[in-house]
């Protein structure tokens, strides 16, 4: 439809009074990427999106879209379009007028803009509802109207503020697929704000994990999942056990650390790049086995505090060696071949490459 634009965020900060919402972040979103800004509420992801959209002033730094610096441009001059969290459809207008709104503002003639809006509604398979008001539509339909209204301006980048949060779980998954399909067919850059890691994993080409106004990691979902950069990312993405401890030995690509007081010792792959005294390591929950460790430091013995059956897998919560609530996901076959009970002490182990050293943000 239109050509996609690269978004370049250059040490952008947002300060409200005395609180810093976004602290000097830099990010390059390649053209045509589906980018998800992911983080807990209050992490600055929505502020970042609104600064790209132009609905929020930038305290310092610059934003470039394609070849132009848009830092001081009003929203409509930036070539972006925003889809709001609650869709912000105009309740007093029917669908055609909602979709044609921006054309009307530009002074496009009535017949022409209505025809264009109708085409857009047809693309979203909403032409049957063209004369209805937004309140007469379901959540999923409202979302499609909001999409149509945003896309009619031929944006180079579409900015979505938690677009799926108002939908029920089933619709969420369906609309997720529709969003991805739309992005692929339009080829424009999508920036999508969400607090659901599942949503981000399913959609994104680039996940940007944010916390406390900073970017913790920006990478392909697979990298974010397999090699989380920081303890925060590992915890937030889930499916990882994070163990913190004091570094006792750091070799070229191995770090040994001991958990204080109880003295559990663990080994992990990776560099202790900043030569710090403490380190965090992450162990994938699904790579943990019930077995004696092959090498000291690649497992521990603990007592089971909880067992959850999940169909194809069983989730065990184990505490021991100074580690609380260590999660192990074992396949149902492996579990029922050798069942264990709550309170029992079992050995857990993993391979050397499944325990990785996590980095720290420079503060």
């Amino acid at each position, binding site marked *: 439809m239109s050509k996609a634009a690269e978004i370049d965020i250059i040490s952008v900060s947002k300060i409200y009074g005395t609180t810093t919402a976004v602290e000097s972040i830099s990010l390059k979103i390649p053209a045509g990427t589906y980018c998800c800004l992911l983080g807990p509420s209050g992490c600055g992801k929505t502020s970042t999106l609104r600064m790209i959209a132009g609905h929020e002033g930038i305290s310092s730094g610059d934003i470039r879209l394609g070849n132009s610096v848009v830092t001081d441009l009003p*929203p409509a001059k930036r070539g972006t379009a925003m889809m709001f969290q*609650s869709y912000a*459809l105009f309740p*007093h207008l029917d669908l055609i007028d909602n979709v044609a*709104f921006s054309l009307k503002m530009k002074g496009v003639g009535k017949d022409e803009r209505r025809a264009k809006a109708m085409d857009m509604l047809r693309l979203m398979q909403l032409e049957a509802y063209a004369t209805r008001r937004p309140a007469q539509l379901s959540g999923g339909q409202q979302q499609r109207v909001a999409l149509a*209204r945003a896309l009619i301006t031929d944006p180079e980048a579409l900015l979505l503020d938690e677009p799926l949060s108002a939908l029920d779980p089933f619709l969420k998954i369906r609309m997720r697929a529709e969003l991805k399909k739309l992005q692929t067919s339009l080829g424009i850059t999508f920036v999508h704000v969400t607090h659901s890691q599942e949503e981000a994993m399913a959609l994104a080409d680039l996940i940007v994990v944010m916390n406390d106004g900073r970017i913790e990691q920006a990478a392909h979902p697979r990298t974010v999942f397999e090699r989380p950069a920081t303890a925060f990312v590992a915890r937030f993405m889930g499916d990882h056990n994070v163990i913190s401890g004091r570094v006792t030995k750091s070799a070229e690509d191995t770090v040994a650390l001991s958990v204080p007081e109880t003295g559990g010792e663990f080994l992990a792959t990776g560099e202790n790049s900043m030569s710090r005294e403490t380190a965090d390591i992450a162990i994938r929950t699904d790579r943990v086995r019930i077995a004696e460790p092959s090498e000291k430091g690649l497992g521990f013995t603990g007592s089971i505090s909880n067992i959850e059956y999940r169909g194809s897998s069983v989730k065990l919560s184990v505490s021991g060696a100074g580690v609380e609530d260590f999660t192990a996901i074992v396949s149902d076959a492996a579990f029922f071949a050798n069942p264990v009970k709550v309170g029992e002490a079992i050995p857990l182990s993993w391979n050397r490459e499944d325990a990785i050293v996590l980095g720290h943000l420079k503060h």
Partner: protein
Amino acid sequence: MATITTSESAKAEGVKPRSFRLPPSLISYLQAAPLTLILGSFLAVPILMIGIVSFWDYDFAQMYPDFVTFNYAETLGSWVTWKTYLNTLKFAFLVWVITLFIGFWVAYFLAFHIRTTAMQMVLFLVCTVPFLTSNIIRMISWIPVLGRNGLVNSTLISADIVSEPVEWLLYSDFAVVLAMVHLYTLFMVTPIFNTLMRIDKSLVEAARDAGASSWQTLTNVILPLAKPGMAIGTIFVVTLVMADFSTVQVMSGGQSASVALMMKNQMSLLQYPAAAANAVVLLVIVLLMVATILRIVDIRKEL
């Protein structure tokens, strides 16, 4: 075990005090009764009385129960009535236009330009401060301001802008409209403020995102969404102005007439049936006006 349970429950049933239960339908009627009584005795019965009396005969001292229609014939057939109605409608229209204009902008300022809710409430309460004094006092306090030797005239003369006092400031239609605007603007501000506060701020952002200027946002988004509040305010102002007699009497110095003032004069001459007929005509006209407003704007969302 089982037998014990049954005997116990039987005992419990026997012990239970025999309660006096009203039939459910009667309970609903009883619940509706207080409001029915109040509305009936203070609204329905008086209106009915006015309707009945408007068909009675009268002379200088007494009313005679009868069924005559000349009260209506006289009211509707006299050019004085028509002129008075036109004059009242003129006041209603002028006051409506001015209060709508002022009311909208005050409400708009309160709702969109004041950031904190606390400040919004403070400023809104400031708007209501004049209401702590009575209507009459607020009206009469205009006289020393607008009079021949009042504040405005003495200022104008001492500033050499005019050589002799401006006559039309007081005891004129201007004074009537000014006083009414002063008295009734808040009735416009309140409902419009209420509607504007309910407008989702993201709609304004969405309009801005679509390239709308502030003016376009106002005309395309805010004004259409403020219509129900404007309609409610309009109903308040129009009915108040149509029924007003004290403001017209005091501020026009008896030189202007309104329908309610005409009725008051009829009553002071003990022509109750004629006044009643007039009241019925006024009621019908005001109801028609309200019905028209409700047809144009759907206010149900606001209630």
